[in-house]
Structures are given as structure tokens and as C-alpha cells.
């Protein structure tokens, strides 16, 4: 591969290089917007993490010690919403913004002004959502924040929802608009702006997984918007979509929600597959094993994700035939997921492996995500799911795939591409400290949840029977340890942002391939004004 490289800042004479607040507020530059997304998602990760620590502080001992159960429910709800919509999704959009144009040799995203808008909606959306929590904690009379779980099942969120439910609805609409615009931007960019010679089947897997993710987003975010709109009219305009007393159906809500919610799970994890598929070949100094089958596996996971939604609701009393269909489909989805894991292992096999920080995170991802995937296979077995459903076993499962899965892969991506973003290598000592502390604490935090879940502790409980006490104590210790470990990463990022550290060359990782390594580090404000030619 060759590329036209080395555009310097002095070269872009036909562009005014903006400074100060205006640079960020009015930015149409994919790199600046990517940076905004990444900092925003990291801030939300810390906010959501604080809420998780309130939850774990309450659950450390049996009894109600720290917060009222009402506030506890608000914490579980807003923690989930902030982490899903505020931390994981914007982080992957930030990575897409930064890396997709660099990877396909495009000068920028296809729709730069829309790109600006889709980011700047988010801070407002989350200000609205989080304001409800601040009012609940400190406001006169403590008006409740959303307290019905991030899944907001009707009628708990409609007839019985607090006044702040309307803030929640508005905020979800805004997040949805932002996600849809971001997804359209990715689709248009990838389909239209590839450099000459960059055929679809030559694209880095990260671009592929994001392209498929973007189609999922465009397909299901409107469904979520529909669900919250029906909630809104149920609450204020006398409709009865989800109210049995008016001829509606509370179970309909769950079908609609999970028709969005299950593809949403893959929206959060598919970009991670792409990240790991970039990092493992680099540090194994070997091509990705089974590139084509990775693409097909990703596409089949995405397609299957539309026909498995009801496995989240096996206990609602579906007819036997429906239950069986969703059980079989859910079991089936483990086949393409397994293909991916085996491909990563085969990529490592007989390579020449080194274990720099991105590789450490990527390997931790493969192992721990697989743990989450295997417990997912257990959950697919419907008769046994009746025992697991809505217990801490489920909580353990989805935190393994989302924290030690999606979030670990985002850390891997950050350590991998920070040299390109900032021009300096992330501090090695702090990075190792961050990795080992996170790896150990995340397992202390989430593994014992399997045990309390199997023993029968339901989720979203503010207080629990005594037999669950021992493991909950250790889980809480793990939670505080994991939370503190993330402060190390704040330091790593701040040092990179301040350009403190070893200067990074254009290609800091010797085994890495791809167009992004042909431009200098840090990547200049404008890259690929003249498209590179990919052979």
C-alpha cells in the first residue's frame, strides 16, 4: 500500500485553521469531532461509574444503609442509560469519526456539518437526563428521577412513571437523532469516499463492522423513538398502547423495546470486534485469519440479531412455539460469534507475538468476552433461563460482554491509536498499572455475580436476604477497586493531551498495516486531500 503522506499544517492555505472555543463548537473536522466524542464518552463513563458505586455502596451489606430504595432504583436506571447511550455508543462513534476516514483514505466524513450536529446534540441530551438525577438528589422535595430501569417497562414507566419521565423521553429522542445521523454519515462515507483501489473486501475489518453497525442503528433507533413516543402519548394524550385497561398491551412494549434492544447489544459490540481484529494481527505480525469469514460472520450476527429479541422475555408467557423459535435462533447466534473467536485464536497461532498495551487489552477482551458469550449460551436454554432470568446471573453476563468486552476493547483502541491522535506514546508504566488493576478488579467485581445469581438473588434489589451477603461484599470491593483504577486512565489521557511523553513516529507499532499509519503522528488537521492509491 502506498499513500500520499505528509501534509503539514502550513499546507492547508485554503483553510482557516480555527482556534479556541470556536474550533470545537463549529468544528466540521472529523478528527476534532472524534476527539469531542471520545472525551464526552469518557466523562459519561465516569458519571455512570459514580452511579454504579452508589449502587455497590448500598449493596455492600444487607440492610438499607446509604440510600433510599427509591434513589437506588434511579441509580440503576440512569447508570444503565448513561453507560449504554452516553459511554459505549459515543465512544465507538468517536473511534469511527477518527479512524474511518484515515483507514479508507478519505479527507473527512461525507457529511461534516451533520457530523458536528450529531455530536453537539449529545451534551444537551445528557444534561436533560442527568438534571433529573441532580434534582432528585438535591432539589426541594427530591422529585424522583427516572426509576424504572434502563428497560423502562410499561406500565411502571407510563402510568406509574415520575414526572421526570418526560425529560427522559425527550433525552432519548435526542440521543436517537444523534445516533441515526452518525450512522448515516458512516454509511455514506464508507460507500462513497473510499480511496481508489480500496475495494469493499480490502477495507479494514473495523470499517466493515462499523458499516454493519450503522445499518443496525438506522434500522432500530426509529423503533426506540416509536416506543418512547407511544409512552409519551400514553402518559399525556389518553392513548392506551401499553395499558391493558384501555385495550392496550404491556407486553407489546417489551416486544417493541427488545426489537430495538437486542440489535442495540450488537451495535455496542460489533465495533469492538473490528478493533480487536485490527490489534491482534498487528502484534502477532500475521494477517488476520479468515478475513472473508469475519465479514460474513459479522453480517450474519447482525441479521440474526433481528430475530432473537424475545429471549429477553421468556417469562412473559409466550406460546410454546414462539418460545422454541426464539430459543433456537438464540442458540444459532453463537455459531458466527464462535467463528470470530476461533479466527482470533488462529490469527495468534504461530505468529510472532509481543504484548504491548493494546495487545494486552485485546487479549483480555477475547478471553472475558468469551466468558460472557458462554454464559449467554447458558441463558439461551429457555427452561434454565426461567431460573437465571432477572437474577444477578444476567447482570454478570451482560457486564462481562459490555465492560470487559466493549469497554476493554475501547481501551485497547485508545492505547493503540493514542500515538496517532496525540503524537505521543501513552505512558507505559501508568498503562500497565491501569491494565492489571482493571483486569483483576473487573473479575472480582463481576465473577461472583454469577454465584449470587445462580443462588437466586434477583437483580435491581436494594436489599437482599442474608445468604447473598458474602459475595456481595466482595463484589462491592471489586467495584471500588475497578472505579479507582479508571482514574489512572484519566492521567494517561491528560498526559497525552498535554503532549507529555515519548514522541510517536508515524508508525509506532512495527507490525501494523493500514493507511492510518502512513500519515504523520499526530495526524495533521487535514489528511488525504489527494486520495492515496491502494494497490
Amino acid at each position, binding site marked *: 500500500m502506498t499513500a500520499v503522506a505528509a501534509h503539514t499544517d502550513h499546507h492547508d492555505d485554503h483553510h482557516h485553521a480555527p482556534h479556541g472555543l470556536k474550533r470545537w463548537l463549529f468544528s466540521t473536522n472529523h478528527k476534532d469531532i472524534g476527539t469531542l466524542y471520545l472525551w464526552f464518552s469518557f466523562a459519561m463513563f465516569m458519571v455512570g461509574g459514580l452511579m454504579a458505586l452508589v449502587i455497590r455502596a448500598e449493596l455492600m451489606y444487607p440492610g438499607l444503609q446509604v440510600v433510599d430504595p*427509591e434513589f437506588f432504583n434511579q441509580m440503576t436506571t440512569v447508570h444503565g442509560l448513561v453507560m449504554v447511550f452516553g459511554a459505549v455508543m459515543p465512544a465507538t462513534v468517536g473511534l469511527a469519526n477518527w479512524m474511518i476516514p484515515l483507514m479508507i483514505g478519505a479527507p473527512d466524513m461525507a457529511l461534516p456539518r451533520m457530523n458536528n450536529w450529531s455530536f453537539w446534540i449529545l451534551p444537551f441530551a445528557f444534561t436533560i437526563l442527568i438534571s433529573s438525577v441532580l434534582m432528585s438528589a438535591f432539589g426541594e422535595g427530591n422529585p424522583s428521577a427516572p426509576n424504572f430501569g434502563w428497560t423502562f417497562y410499561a406500565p411502571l414507566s407510563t402510568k406509574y412513571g415520575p414526572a421526570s419521565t418526560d425529560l427522559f423521553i425527550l433525552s432519548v429522542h435526542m440521543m436517537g437523532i444523534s445516533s441515526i445521523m452518525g450512522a448515516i454519515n458512516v454509511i455514506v462515507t464508507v460507500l462513497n469516499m473510499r480511496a481508489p483501489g480500496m475495494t469493499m473486501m480490502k477495507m479494514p475489518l473495523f470499517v466493515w463492522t462499523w458499516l454493519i453497525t450503522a445499518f443496525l442503528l438506522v434500522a432500530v433507533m426509529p423503533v426506540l423513538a416509536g416506543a418512547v413516543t407511544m409512552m409519551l402519548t400514553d402518559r399525556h394524550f389518553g392513548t392506551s398502547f401499553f395499558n391493558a385497561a384501555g385495550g392496550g398491551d404491556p407486553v407489546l412494549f417489551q416486544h417493541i423495546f427488545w426489537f430495538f434492544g437486542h440489535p442495540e447489544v450488537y451495535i455496542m459490540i460489533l465495533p469492538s470486534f473490528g478493533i480487536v481484529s485490527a490489534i491482534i494481527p498487528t502484534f502477532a505480525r500475521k494477517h488476520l485469519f479468515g478475513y472473508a469469514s469475519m465479514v460474513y460472520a459479522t453480517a450474519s450476527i447482525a441479521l440474526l440479531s433481528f430475530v432473537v429479541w424475545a429471549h429477553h422475555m421468556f417469562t412473559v408467557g409466550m406460546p410454546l412455539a414462539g418460545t422454541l423459535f426464539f430459543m433456537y435462533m438464540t442458540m444459532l447466534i453463537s455459531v458466527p460469534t464462535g467463528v470470530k473467536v*476461533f479466527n482470533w485464536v488462529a490469527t495468534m497461532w504461530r505468529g510472532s507475538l509481543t504484548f504491548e498495551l493494546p495487545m494486552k487489552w485485546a487479549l483480555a477482551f477475547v478471553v472475558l468476552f468469551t466468558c460472557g458469550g458462554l454464559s449467554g449460551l447458558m441463558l439461551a436454554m429457555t427452561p434454565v433461563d426461567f431460573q437465571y432470568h432477572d437474577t444477578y446471573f444476567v447482570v454478570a453476563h451482560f457486564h462481562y460482554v459490555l465492560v470487559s468486552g466493549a469497554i476493554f476493547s475501547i481501551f485497547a483502541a485508545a492505547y493503540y491509536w493514542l500515538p496517532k491522535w496525540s503524537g505521543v506514546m501513552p505512558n507505559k508504566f501508568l498503562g500497565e498499572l491501569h491494565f492489571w488493576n482493571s483486569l483483576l478488579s473487573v473479575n472480582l467485581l463481576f465473577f461472583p455475580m454469577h*454465584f449470587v445469581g445462580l443462588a437466586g438473588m*434477583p437483580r435491581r434489589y436494594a436489599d437482599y436476604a442474608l445468604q447473598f451477603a458474602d459475595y456481595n461484599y466482595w463484589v462491592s470491593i471489586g467495584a471500588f477497586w475497578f472505579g479507582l483504577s479508571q482514574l489512572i486512565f484519566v492521567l494517561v489521557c491528560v498526559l497525552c493531551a498535554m503532549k507529555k511523553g515519548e514522541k510517536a513516529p508515524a508508525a509506532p507499532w512495527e507490525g501494523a498495516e493500514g493507511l492510518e499509519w502512513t500519515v504523520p503522528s499526530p495526524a495533521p488537521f487535514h489528511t488525504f486531500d489527494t486520495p492515496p492509491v491502494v494497490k
Partner: protein
Amino acid sequence: MQSTLFRRVTAALTLLLVSGVSVASDWTERSNVNLRPGVTNISQDVFDLHMVILWIVSLIGLLVFGLIMYSAVAHRRSKRPQAADFHENVFLEVFWTVVPFIILIGMAVPATRVLIAMDDSSDAELTVKVTGYRWNWSYEYLAYQDDNDVGIFYFSNLKTPAEQYNRPILKDGLFPYGTAADRVGAEPTEKDSTYMLAVDKPLVIPAGVKVRFLVTADDVIHSFYMPDFAIKKDAIPGFVNEAWTLVPEDATGTYYGQCAELCGKNHAFMPIEVRVLAKNEFDSWIAEEKEKAASGPDLTPFSSLESAMELGQQKYAAACVLCHGAEGQGGIGLPFAGTELMTDPSRVQENIDVLIKGRNAMPSFAAQLTPREIAAVITYQRNAFGNNTGDLVQPADVAK
């Protein structure tokens, strides 16, 4: 239900795994780490399935992690400076697509069998309607053998007293509402082994008889979760879901369950307790309850303020404390301590009306409390928390 081979393999594997792991037979035993085998045939089948799938995923996990570990050690750069150059192998790729598929079919067959067995609720001898409320359960016995009009109906509330769970460690709590701030610094109360599990009046069912539960809810979605019977069925307002169990004759005793679907503030405070009696004991229990139900409400007047206060305190702790607070300080519900609603003598009738008919978020308690109990609760509220009005409400006032 399943083939002998399947059972044998399961039993052997189970024995292997549980040899180092305790499977608690008592729900209240601390720190058990595995699923409960339960007491019914179905729950045993479910446990067997669980152990098989647990073994399969553990072996797959060990295989994959073993390969990764081996590769990380044997293929590190200091051992292999030059990476091999292969990135495709049709045989391997087909192999690891087809083999998992075959394993899945092997799992789907027994899972389907158990699921079909669980679905068949026909030929039940006892039918109990289970209704979830915020935040307790009610049980209505609809039909037993030839009797299609049993007419027993009662509510079941958490027995654990508020002083056992309400232990804020900070003055006013960290987020000051609904918590009993006065208790900060008080001696901790010992939590008994049925903490958060025992109820005032358990569901009673016979052993050796197929029991059908019709599960529904009055307000939001709840979930009827009895791990020992392998039952988890959502209680949905406007819907009636079916579940069933057949507890073997030798498994009489007390079993616990909990609400498993988030239903608001006190989701964790509405456990399920099931007492399984031998069939002859159950027959005499049901006869006794029917007689009680037939005799109509007890309107015996209270002889003294103290006797009314005593009953009122019990009922307040069971029915009112979750919303109105142990000290009448309010929370989700209105505060009572020193408020005009509870001290103005002219508002006694209003108190009665609200309890019977409900008002806004406050549900009606006409089905849950007898007239005598409603009278006692109002008497308690008007005399406790420093209200000391001296008002004594009699059952006859409420029955009007």
C-alpha cells in the same frame, strides 16, 4: 422424561462438579454458589440441563483459553522471530462452524423436551390465583378438586420489621428522604435467617397434588419466582399467565421466592413464602380457612385504646410502613407525624374513606384489611408518632 443415557451422563458430570461445591438444600443457607436443584421433578430436570450446559461451556472455555495461553507462551517473539504466513484454511473454518452447530442441536433436544413438559398445566387439582401488587402478593384459592368456589383470599406481606433493614449510616441518609434518620447511631438489630424472605401469611399448598397458579398483577408488572419449583412467571396487569408445580409427597416444608421484575421502590420487599403441607393437613387447613371466610368480618368493638393500638401497630408495620415510614415521617406516601390529617378530629371520616377507596397513588385497602383492622390502623396513626389525639375508631364506624 429424558433418556437414561442423558440422565447418567448428567448425574456423573454433576457429581464431579458438586464434589467440591456445596449445593445448599436450605434457601437461607449462606453463600451457595450453584443453581438450586429444587424439589420437583421439573426443577430437577432443569438443574440437570443447567449442569450439562455448564459443563459444555466450561470445556469450550477451557479449550479456547488453553489455546490462547499456549499460543501466548509458545509463539511469543523471543521464541519465533518470524511469524508463519497463513490466513485461511477452508477445512478449519468449516470444522468450527459445523461442530458448534452439532453441539447446539444436542442441547436443543433435551431443552425442548423439558420446555414442553413445563408448558403442560392440564389436570391440576388445585387452582390458586396469584396477584402481584406494589408491594405484596395476594392468593385466591379458586378451585380444589370438585369444589369450584373455595373462596379463600388473603394478602401476604413481608414479615421483616423495618428496624431490621432501615439502618442509614449517615445523618439524614446521603440522599435525605424516606429513611428513618432517627435511627442513625442506634444499636444494630440482629437479622434473622429469614430476613427479607418470611411473610406474615404464606401461600399454603398440598404435597403430591398438581397445583396450577394463575399469575396476574393489579398495577405494574411483577414476577412470581419460586426457584425450588423452577417457576418464574411474569405477573402482568390485564393478563393471566399459567404456571404449575407438583411437589413430591416427601418434600413438605417451607420454600421461599421473591419478586423478580422491577416494580418500583419496594421491589425487594415483597417475598413469596410457600408452605407445602401433607395432603390431609392441607385438607383440614382449607376447611378451617373456608369456615373463617364464611363467618363474615369480625366487628367486635375494641375494649380499650391499648388493644386497638396493639393491633394497629402490627397492621401499620405490615401494610403502611413501606410508604409512610416507621416513624410516620412519610416517603412515597404522606407524612403522618403531627399532620393535620391525623390530628384534626373532624377528618376521621376522611381517613376511613381514603383507606377504603384509595386516593391518587394510595391504593384501596378494602380487600387487604378487615374493617376491624382498618379501625385499628387509623386509631394507631392518630395516637402514635406523638399525635396522641386519644381518638378510638371502632370497627362499626368503618363497616358503615
